[in-house]
């Protein structure tokens, strides 16, 4: 048994294509993911928007607008929203054509915004200018309301002071006095899903290792298989040592991938190391059983078997969000059954629930599903491998 274990390890490690797909490829792909996705979420956060304001007489006279824009573009203000250039109309047009600014504001009778095309920055620009106009209007409405009430009582002596006091009152209402409480989870980085699908892919690719190892023992695959089949060692021992050796190889690959993603790519798998290890062990088992079952059920060349596992893995990973993160969500929402039987989805969802949720019920459900998946496949494989007889090979 130890002999077979040792030689299976040797055979597996010497297979260059195998080592490429199971060890190197996930690491290469992870590097690509990291290069492409590392800045995406940073770019989605609200940044300071570059805009221009046309300096004309009407704008110079509008103290209210001038002041408001000054506050919004103040570099010392932590809520600075705009980076404003004050220019003439010709320069503003030029800046817009050259894509230096999102848009520019020109005050004619009313404020007008000139932009190039639709977009989120443009919407925010428009929204803020509207808010400034709104505040102005609010002063008027409140003033009218008070005037209506207070003129008969002759309380108002100086009309200018009266407006200033209302204006000050409105400005004094800070954002903080609005009672909004953010209760969202701190772990919201959705690009993590890409790396979780990567782990899922590596685990399922591990199936190729199991397949190669089992193929070595199958009499209909090679002469080596024939020799092993007629040897006096019990089948049970042979298979067990083969499977154990391929599981070991698979885990070594997975450990390398984890080390690489955690220490070099800085991927966050959540805090509970023990649960991460448990999920990885179960996930690898699922991959292994997939490989063994394909190897036993499908009677054809090794290349075809590899092709089937690669294609199946890719398809499962596609459904669990590797080629587009929302794919998993779309499937979960519309065809939940599909993702409940998809091992890549179970693995991805397991890591996702460790990362995102505080409770463990969803994680446990994934672990149990993966175990059931592996057991079913292993039972099928055992039935196929038992009492094999060949009239001729």
């Amino acid at each position: 048994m130890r002999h077979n274990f040792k030689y299976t390890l040797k055979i597996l490690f010497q297979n260059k294509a195998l080592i490429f797909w199971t060890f190197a490829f996930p690491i290469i792909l992870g590097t690509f993911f990291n290069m492409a996705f590392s800045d995406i979420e940073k770019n989605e956060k609200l940044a300071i928007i570059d805009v221009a304001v046309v300096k004309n007489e009407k704008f110079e006279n509008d103290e209210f607008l001038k002041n408001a824009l000054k506050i919004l573009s103040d570099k010392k203000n932590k809520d600075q929203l705009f980076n404003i250039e004050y220019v003439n109309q010709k320069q503003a047009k030029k800046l817009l054509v050259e894509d230096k600014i999102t848009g520019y504001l020109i005050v004619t009778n009313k404020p007008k915004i000139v932009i190039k095309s639709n977009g989120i920055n443009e919407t925010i620009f428009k929204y803020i200018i509207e808010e400034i106009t709104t505040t102005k209007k609010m002063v008027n409405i409140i003033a009218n309301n008070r005037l209506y009430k207070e003129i008969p009582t002759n309380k108002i002596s100086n009309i200018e002071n009266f407006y200033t006091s209302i204006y000050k009152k409105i400005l004094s209402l800070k954002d903080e006095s609005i009672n909004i409480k953010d209760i969202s989870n701190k772990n919201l980085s959705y690009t993590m899903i890409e790396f979780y699908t990567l782990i899922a892919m590596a685990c399922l690719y591990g199936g190729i290792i199991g397949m190669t190892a089992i193929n070595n023992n199958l009499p209909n695959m090679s002469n080596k298989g024939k020799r092993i089949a007629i040897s006096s060692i019990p089948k049970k021992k042979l298979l067990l040592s083969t499977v154990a050796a391929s599981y070991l190889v698979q885990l070594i690959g997975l450990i390398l991938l984890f080390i690489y993603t955690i220490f070099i790519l800085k991927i966050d798998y959540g805090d509970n190391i023990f649960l991460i290890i448990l999920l990885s062990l179960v996930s690898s088992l699922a991959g292994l059983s997939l490989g063994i079952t394909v190897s036993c059920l499908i009677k054809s060349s090794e290349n075809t078997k590899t092709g089937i596992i690669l294609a199946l893995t890719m398809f499962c990973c596609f459904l669990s969000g590797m080629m587009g993160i929302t794919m998993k969500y779309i499937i979960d929402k519309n065809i939940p059954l599909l993702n409940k039987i998809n091992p890549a989805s179970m693995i991805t969802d397991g890591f996702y629930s460790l990362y995102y949720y505080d409770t463990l019920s969803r994680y446990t459900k994934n672990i149990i599903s993966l175990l059931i998946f592996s057991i079913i496949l292993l039972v099928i494989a055992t039935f196929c491998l038992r009492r094999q007889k060949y009239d001729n090979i």
Partner: protein
Amino acid sequence: MIIFKTFLKILLKNKFIIITYTAILIFFGCFNTQTNDNTTNFSATKPDILIINKDENKGLTKDLITYLNKNSNIKKIPDKKYSLDDALFYRDVNYIIYIPKDFREDFLANKNPQIKIKSTKDYQASLAEMMLKRYLKTATIYHSEIPNEKDLLESINSTLKVSTQIQMTTKLNTNSLNKMISYYNFANYSILAGCVYVICLILSSFKEKSIRKRTIISSLKSSTYNLNLLLSNSLFALILWIFYVILSIILVGNAMFTPHGILLIINSFIFTLCALTLAFFIGTLLSNKNAINGIVNVIALGSSFLCGSFVPIEYLPKSVTQIAHILPSYYYIKNNELIKKIEIINLKTINEVLINGIILIIFILIFILLTNIISKKRRDFSYQ
């Protein structure tokens, strides 16, 4: 001619695997091109929000929801155990607003009730938060002056109705352009993977030792042999390219026949030639048939990720785009992005596009040259 015949023979022999491979690439390509309605008028970006209202739907609460409804897309997701948090994580909604029980009453009684929110903290969420704050702020200010709810709502609405005049300068239909660009950017992967895979597969058959020996002792010149092989392979690349162009016309429609569309098609043609010569170069270097799959994935995926085929180029880190300068895909995708921005097409505006095109042609020449040098060297050394 004999080379071309052999080429066709091998191509037909592998037709099943080639068709499957191309079909998968096309499937992903189609999937990647999302559909959008097209418009050239200003339409404000609307964040996707979700409102969980525990209060009675009347008065101030109703008015708040109506206001949010007008300015954002309100999503309806059943409030099941994980569904809301999942929706937030996968950006199905950007902002969740929990309106507490008795919100209206507490607000009118000046108790300043708390509204809980969940946010993705991106642009859309910031916009949603601005809206919510704007409404609450307006309501708070007015409420200190106007205690009556009906008058209060009237004042709030007349204030929030204000809208700024917008003028849009672009005459381009940005949505169909975006669709075209995303399709052609993805084609970088499909064309590269398709060319490298098939051409390497065919070349490896030509390189079997006995066949190679026979070709070498024939009177055929090495460069003529390479040229013949290259031309035969061009046929495959050409068919692949035509296929993608036809598919883009089916997917995007008439917009492909605008000057922008034509420029994109020309750009993709030059890139296909580049992919062809690159594939030819790799095929010459490669001696192991089993390595093809790995090489294809590393090269096609690598240049697609690094050059902005999957993720828009402006989202990539600076260091990555710096490295990408050494890859032909970078110039192809850069050109697509440049074409997107051109308003009027004339010699001055497409100047930069032309320069990138020339760089692609230089790549083509370098690959041909390298292929010839290497195949000659290999012959001299290995079969003496």
